[in-house]
């Protein structure tokens, strides 16, 4: 047990400890950038599992829309990437179609697709991280887990996004197979939530912008946006993801992410 006196000492030390490096580090944008990203990561980890409902609206340059409705289940796995199942509700002809992804921190993910009309589970070529997620403006690497080691960071400036004070951080993908030369991420300076991301293509031209709105706090810890809108500046297309019915810590297990059980996911 820690005595009250000692614990107070620790508090004092901790306060001094965090203040000193901050002032020193402010001069070093790389360290400051990593620090911000690490803080955002720390605040968003440990949720274990999530279920949610997702409506994806794809909008073409001339305003034509396609809508997909799906349910998503994700489980964090110690020492490996996330387990994810997506089940389609709409369009109706795809209802019950399920996509299982076993993520890996390095190397390609493993993916299986369940086709209810044929009662068939197929191992499929795992989407290249730079390729589009189901024809949307989101690439697999945009929606996959944003582990710290996937980028190097550099703090740019104090900024504001939609009237909110924000920290702009540039991050450069460490994986040469990434579709981006760099990204600029705006974290809000209070809660370290991502407010906006600009994506620059391999020739360093602005490709896409992602805006996240309607943040809500779940399980008294985790902030999640109701809406994520990705606009492709080069094609004029956009994709909006609307999230609802977020549930954290529902008690999913690895056995729920078994390819033989894809037919009965609900």
């Amino acid at each position, binding site marked *: 047990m820690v005595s009250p006196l000692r614990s107070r000492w620790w508090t004092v030390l901790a306060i001094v400890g965090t203040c000193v490096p901050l002032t020193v580090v402010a001069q070093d944008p790389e360290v400051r950038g990593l620090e911000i990203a690490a803080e955002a990561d720390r605040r968003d980890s440990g949720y274990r599992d999530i279920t949610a409902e997702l409506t994806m609206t*794809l909008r073409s340059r001339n305003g034509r829309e*396609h*809508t997909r409705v799906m349910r998503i289940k994700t489980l964090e796995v110690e020492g490996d990437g996330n387990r994810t199942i997506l089940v389609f509700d*709409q*369009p*109706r*002809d795809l*209802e*019950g179609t399920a996509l299982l992804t076993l993520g890996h921190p390095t190397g*390609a993910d*493993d993916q299986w697709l369940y086709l209810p009309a*044929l*009662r*068939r*589970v*197929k*191992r*499929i*070529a*795992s*989407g*290249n991280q730079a*390729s*589009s997620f*189901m*024809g949307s403006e989101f690439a697999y690497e945009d929606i996959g887990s944003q582990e710290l080691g996937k980028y190097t960071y550099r703090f740019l400036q104090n900024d504001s996004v939609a009237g909110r004070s924000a920290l702009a951080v540039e991050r450069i993908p460490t994986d040469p197979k990434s579709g981006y030369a760099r990204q600029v991420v705006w974290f809000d300076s209070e809660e370290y939530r991502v407010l906006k991301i600009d994506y620059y293509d391999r020739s360093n031209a602005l490709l896409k912008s992602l805006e996240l709105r309607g943040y809500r706090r779940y399980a008294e810890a985790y902030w999640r946006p109701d809406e994520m809108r990705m606009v492709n500046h080069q094609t004029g297309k956009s994709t909006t993801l609307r999230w609802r019915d977020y549930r954290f810590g529902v008690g999913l297990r690895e*056995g729920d992410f*078994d*390819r*033989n059980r894809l037919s*009965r996911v*609900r």
Partner: protein
Amino acid sequence: MKHALLWLPLLVTTTLGRVPVPLEAQWRGAVVVEGRAFSGAAHGVGVSRYETAVAFRLERTVDWDRGRQFLTVAPFFRWDPVDPNRTRLDFRDLSWQGRWRDWELAVGMRELFWGVAESRHVIDVLNQREVVAGAEGYVKLGQPMVHLTWTRRWGVVEAFLLTGFRTRPFAGQAGRLWSPLPVDADDATFESAAETGHLDAAVRWTHTVGAWDIGLAHFRGTSREPRFVLGGNGLGQAVWVPHYDLIRRTSVDLQLTTGRWLWKLEGARQTAAAGRHSALAGGVEYAFADYLSVLAEYVYDSRGDRATTSLQDDVYLGARLLTQDGAISAGGYIDRKTGNRFLNIQATRRLTDAFTATLEVWVFGGASGREPRHAPRRDTTLGLRVSRFL
């Protein structure tokens, strides 16, 4: 032993009445209206060049016991206003399932799929099939079974007890595609004295190791695929009489998924009193993206000209394109020896959230005389299917 088929639906239906409510469940399914036109030389008297049907597919799963137990009911009903033999009520699924830790038990009528290849499903032996001129070329019939699954780190082991054999229906145009002679399905003969009551069994092990998906299976019982024996019907006309052998069939399926390349192979070795044969299908698929892939496969059957399929030494080439509004797939078989070709193109378009339309073309090219027993007699089949999803 037709009653073997009956008790399972009865059991499931009575259990369904006792399921505690409230249950999170809803019906899903589709009403499908389909029409087909067959061109080319007409064979047989009174054989129509057209085929129409309305089909209903419904499915409902209810679960309780915190998701550990399920009942699935999936009726299929097809009504052909012209050919009463094609009108049929079936259950793709009518089963109870329970799962406890690593174990899973299912009892009832079920439809299951085994295999990895696209061109021919060589190892998929549990369910009887009805040949139809459309989609996959067949639809499956529900199979009554007791199915036990055991999931371990080293793979999944499944044991099947198949209670009640179902004979293959040969109604409609598709049932006649392969031969000018009619098939007398009602007078089918069996090697087993128990006929359709013979108890069949199967075991299967599947596992994933990194990029590899591996499957091994063994089946023992009545062959789902009949041989045909020349016979006569009551009117003294020559007909093909289906004969169902007792077989032992061992199969393997492998898939290696490396980046955009998918290498697939499935093969089976079958032993019957009449002899042994083997069959395989395998090849490679390349995915340019998740919406576009091409594939090349080879299909082999050691029975050669005596095979019950024309796919005994054929090369298959195919492509698949998914769009935001639908899908287009095309595939063609080329017989290595005779050069006979068989091409299938399917295009599905989503009209609204609830409606899709599918246009389908089957083209046979080459001389049917080169494969007299198996070649389709119709040169071209054109089909249109409109589905309303519920």
